């Protein structure tokens, strides 16, 4: 039986980052992956959707061609090429991660891993057993099922099948208006599909600041995506050549007919099949319970990423993986402050946020001041023809500490890292306003929103 200092189960952005960090710190490291390196993020999530969204953005640009002086008679749009490109992007990046493992000296095993006892993991189907002084669980998550609805993978699908489509459905119902739902709504809508999004909660992107959700709804509607909020799905039934979704809201009951239904109502932890009970690793609602350094109830077993149910984002998993390994190495204890981690939605418009929403800040007892500054006042935004949306700052009235920054508009996912850094350094609104932002950039609107909150906006 081969012995390792660290055995990682799962090769997604949590597991593979943990494995590289473990090698950097001199640990003999194994990683067990059941499918492809990179996990859901790289194969069926973050990365292929960004490739398809890039195509969607180009279609949108072409649709505005006349204003730019481009005319064409026989424009042909072939979604299968977009699909092919997205898979090529995935295979390039997967290879990169495979070589990263090889070059870092991580021993990669193919298969699933489950506990034999607290320091032994059995790989299936090979049956090989690895001994690990420390075990990192990083098995990720799967789409959350809708009670009473079974996905047939053809007419009722999740993000995985949606990414495998080589043509765009003529009509689609998307259940769940979170980031995944709105990204697919954007892609299919730009390719001419009739898209209806059904959301149980009062707003689209329901966990964003309310002002952001309302602006997002306005822009999605402008793009002719139909939004039905505060609407429940009663049942979904497959017919001969389409699928019927029965919905219920304040207006009563209605049947939506479409070519496909995509379910995007969140994710559930992949904690089954690991043999957690056998080794006494505790879970709550399927999520593995961890402390701030990602230790489970067994001191040599750690869990990271979606499996912990903390915040199902790739960058959270990676950060948790590094903390777990540094804890094993005996480095000073670090912990993540989850509200300060940026969240991004890459639909059109994009949404990005960090820190508390206005509502959360009030609930925490802060006396809150806010400012909003629109991109319409930004010269670069106008020049690049992408000037909808705004920046909103939420601050504590007393000491003007920045509590949250919320952005909606073009390219805002690339703007959020700056304010995230400032929040993690406990900066005040004045610090953001005094930090000179380059002209002409979209980022100037952040500075302007800070000036506005201090009562001296220049351009508005």
């Amino acid at each position, binding site marked *: 039986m081969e012995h390792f200092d660290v055995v990682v189960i799962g090769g997604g952005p949590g597991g593979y980052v943990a494995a590289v960090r473990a090698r950097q710190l001199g640990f003999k490291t194994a990683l067990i992956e059941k499918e492809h390196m990179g996990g859901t993020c790289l194969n069926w999530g973050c990365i292929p959707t960004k490739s398809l969204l890039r195509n969607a953005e180009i279609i949108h640009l072409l649709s505005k061609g006349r204003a730019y002086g481009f005319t064409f008679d026989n424009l042909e749009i072939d979604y299968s090429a977009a699909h092919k490109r997205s898979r090529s992007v995935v295979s390039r990046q997967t*290879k*990169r991660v495979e070589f990263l493992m090889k070059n870092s000296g991580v021993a990669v095993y193919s298969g699933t891993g489950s506990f034999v006892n607290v320091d032994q993991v059995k790989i299936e189907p090979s049956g090989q057993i690895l001994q690990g002084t420390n075990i990192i669980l990083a098995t990720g998550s799967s789409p959350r099922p809708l009670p009473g609805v079974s996905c047939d993978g053809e007419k009722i699908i999740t993000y995985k099948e949606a990414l495998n489509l080589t043509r765009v459905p003529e009509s689609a119902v998307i259940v769940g208006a979170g980031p995944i739902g709105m990204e697919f709504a954007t892609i299919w809508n730009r390719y001419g599909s009739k898209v209806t999004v059904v959301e149980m909660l009062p707003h689209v992107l329901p966990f964003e600041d309310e002002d952001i959700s309302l602006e997002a709804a306005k822009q999605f509607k402008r793009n002719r995506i139909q939004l039905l909020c505060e609407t429940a799905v009663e049942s979904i039934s497959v017919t001969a050549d389409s699928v019927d979704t029965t919905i219920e809201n304040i207006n009563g009951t209605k049947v939506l007919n479409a070519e496909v239904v995509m379910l995007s109502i969140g994710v559930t932890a992949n904690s089954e099949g690991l043999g957690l009970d056998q080794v006494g690793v505790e879970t709550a609602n399927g999520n593995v319970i961890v402390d701030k350094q990602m230790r489970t109830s067994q001191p040599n077993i750690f869990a990271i990423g979606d499996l912990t149910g903390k915040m199902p984002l790739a960058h959270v998993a990676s950060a948790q993986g590094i903390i777990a390994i540094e804890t094993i190495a005996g480095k000073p204890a670090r912990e993540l402050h989850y509200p300060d981690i940026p969240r991004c939605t890459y639909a059109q418009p994009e949404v990005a946020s960090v820190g508390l929403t206005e509502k959360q800040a009030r609930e925490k007892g802060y006396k809150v001041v806010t400012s909003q500054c629109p991109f319409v006042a930004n010269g670069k935004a106008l020049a690049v023809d992408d000037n909808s949306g705004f920046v909103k700052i939420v601050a504590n009235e007393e000491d003007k500490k920045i509590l949250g920054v919320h952005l909606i508009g073009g390219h805002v996912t690339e703007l959020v890292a700056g304010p995230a850094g400032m929040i993690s350094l406990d900066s005040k609104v004045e610090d953001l306003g005094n930090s000179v932002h380059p002209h002409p950039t979209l980022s100037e609107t952040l500075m302007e929103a800070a000036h506005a909150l201090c009562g001296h906006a220049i351009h508005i």
Partner: protein
Amino acid sequence: MREFDELNFAPTVLYSTEHTWARQDADLITIGISDYAQNQLGEIIFVELPRIGDNLSSNDVFGFAESVKAVSDLYMPIGGKVVEVNNMVENSPESINNSPFEDGWMIKIISSDTNELQQLMSAETYLDSLKG
């Protein structure tokens, strides 16, 4: 990375200063990158090559090779018209690492002026130029 004495400097081809090689068969010239170049790049994960029918001059960029470490432009050792592209290296770019002079060839061109071959280096001269 391997040392010079572990690398293959195939004597049957001519080399450019940009680490591409050219092998002549009458007017038809096969082009690829040297063993030294692939070794410097590391594992190649993607290549983009020109289209058949493209006319390119000596030193024009005919594509790029993306490796774990970098994206590198590929330069024409001599000019000509592209008549064949190796689809196999587009689908499995690792063949460039494994067999830079055989399976890993990139394009075939009809040379516009075979005299340009005289500007290229023999294996021996190429190796000397690398050793500086």
